[in-house]
């Protein structure tokens, strides 16, 4: 897979590298960092917005945003926990993103959970409390309305998003090697 893919370089010092191999852009706006967990070897690109400050109003430590391993958050994408009125008070709910999730540039994500091996194309809007199960592709420019459930092994596209196709059985391996390959190619100049 990807024998001819070029190396993606960034200027040295523009990304912070953590002990677990995460690469986080200095230009990303990350609020409430204590409420965010990164699994390792994940890349957060320039000008992304991660809203870790939108937490449950009750006291105590809450994990707002957990991101797995080998994930990618593309340029200008926004990840914002969904919120709703519950028993008379407004509360935010956490977002869980599993391993091998690629979110391309200019996306707005308000999902409740995103399973492993999911690819979200450019310019997508993932509505509040959307649940994306493992192994799915959201095509570029898709809008998923609030509360949509994306079943495993499916391809969704359109506005509003619809199930357009199913994935081949080999997709898990393809996506895992793609994510690993991307991480290895993403290096400082």
């Amino acid at each position: 897979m990807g024998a001819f893919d070029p190396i993606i370089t960034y200027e040295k010092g523009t990304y912070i590298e953590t002990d677990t191999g995460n690469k986080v852009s200095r230009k990303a706006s990350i609020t409430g960092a204590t409420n965010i967990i990164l699994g390792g070897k994940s890349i957060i690109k320039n000008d992304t917005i991660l809203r870790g400050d939108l937490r449950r109003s009750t006291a105590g430590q809450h994990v707002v945003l957990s991101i797995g391993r080998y994930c990618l958050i593309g340029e200008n994408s926004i990840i914002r926990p969904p919120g709703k009125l519950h028993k008379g008070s407004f509360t935010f709910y956490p977002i869980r993103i599993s391993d091998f999730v690629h979110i391309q540039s200019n996306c707005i994500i308000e999902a409740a959970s995103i399973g492993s091996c999911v690819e979200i194309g450019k310019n997508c809007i993932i509505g509040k409390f959307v649940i994306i199960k493992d192994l799915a592709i959201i095509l570029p420019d898709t809008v998923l309305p609030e509360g949509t459930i994306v079943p495993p092994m499916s391809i969704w596209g359109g506005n509003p998003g619809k199930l357009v196709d199913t994935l081949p059985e080999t997709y898990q391996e393809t996506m895992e090697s793609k994510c690993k390959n991307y991480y290895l190619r993403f290096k400082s100049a």
Partner: protein
Amino acid sequence: MSVTYSCCHLDSPHAPLPPSYPSSSSSYHSLDKLYFCEECDAVRCDLCSAIEIASYFCPNCLFDVPSANVRADKNRCARSCFSCPTCESSLSIQASDQPSTDNAVGPTATAMTLSGPPYALVCSGCKWSSKEVGWSFDKPTGIALQLQKMNTQVDLVQSEFDSLKDHLESYITLSNPTPSSSSSSRSTRNPSRHISHLTQMAQRALHRDVGGLVAYSARSKRSSPAEKGEKEKFGWDELDEYVPKDSWRRTGLEKGLEDVDLIRDFEESGASGLAALVKRWQSSWDRGSMSREILPQRIPLQTKLTKRCPHPNCRHLLIQPDTKTVRMKIKMVASNYLPLVEIGRRRRRLPSNDISESPDQMSVQDMEKQRRERRRTRGGNPVREEDELMDTPFKAGETYSFQIALTNPLYDPIQIRLTLPHQPKKAPKTDFSVIIPTPHFTINALKDAWAYEEDDESDDYLMGGSGIGGLEAGFSEEGTTTTGTGTNTGTLSRKSKLTILSSNNNKRSKENLNGIEKKGNITKVGLDIQILPEIVRKSKVEFDLEIRYTYKADDLGTPTNDKDENKSKDKDNSTQNKEEYKNFTFWTRVNLGHVE
């Protein structure tokens, strides 16, 4: 630009027709969609594999529907999943806030929205509400059941349908074992399931009717007086006439009046009021044709499929899904057996007189590129090439060089032979020629996951950076460049890797001169395309490649099993018999784009 693999379906493996025959395109698929049957030692595709439904599930509530219920539920979710009549996204259940408006007087009511009945279905995509069609529910669960109870609209149609079904069912159960005479097999009206081969054969052998069944003998008696003329009709389905419960002629007249109303409605609403044809197809019954009359539909179920080898003597499982998870119990996919073929690094060969052309106009990058070029072709002819993007159109009369990369999925090294398949005599001539400078080469084995990753990490440097000439330099720098990402396991593996590299360093550099680049379980070789000057504009540059690979036969059954390195080394040391090796040939189609 794409590389697709041929599936010969049930034929014996053969070279498919060249790309100039459009009919050949149907047997090509991308590698990730192909399966591999170990028993038949053949590639299988979605078109030829036998498919069975393993389980049904609702794509919205993800409920696993037992297959016994599916037919009664009419292949749709029988819980609370509905799709929006306007935008087709799934509807959510919303409690109405009526209690609060009832209790409070005036607009200064409390913001408390007491969730309670009646419930409505609301689309979060387009804000459509089931109140528009007058649907409201007492409970937020089991909407489909509630709807079935309260929906009387289709009662008339439903009862008619049920009685018709009963009528036909009685016929099916009565006449199922009825044998029919062979002469009637010509008749298309005769359902083939009625023909019992055994009785037919007996009939032929005895030259008389082998009946014994009441239905059959009754039928043959009836037709005996006019046997000559009626012979054709022997096995025809003889149905009692169905008496409809309701006169549909009268309904037809009513429909005429409805149509008048419809036209009146249409005049008021304009074209936007009319429902799209797609939406009307989706509803099973005869619904209104105005968009406001389209009702939400229960969401159709999805399936998980079991796939089998199509060969009648094999029928082995290729894919068996696990109903609970996304994993597969059995997964025989071609990507675990066939090398992955990729094509890239396109370069255009510049004519030799261009070499002296204006060196002062070159940028620093160009200079470096040229230097790299010279290094690459060191010892060979001084050919200058220019890097090009893969998707730019080809120019007539030019020569392009590509690299073709093959990835070995097996835990043993394999030998490759690349050839162009034999063209049929009458095949149209192509206006470009393909040259494979190095048709024979080997690919290293796939290693354990960690070793493989480390390979990538360290060898990426070679690939992107100095190319072939800077091999030694690359290795010495390696330590400094990769320390940043090094983890505990990383440092360990690097040591082992360096020893491996030093052992076959000599071999590698020798091969590099022939244009072979090796990196982990990937080998890259050159491939030249010569576009003839007379080529038709906009024509596709597409050709087939025949790839034969030689592998160890004893691994035929378990190529995916982990193998200790010691073990494989032992095998390498021991003198190998020729019999241990097996060949497998497959065909790929390479599409490189089109001519300018």
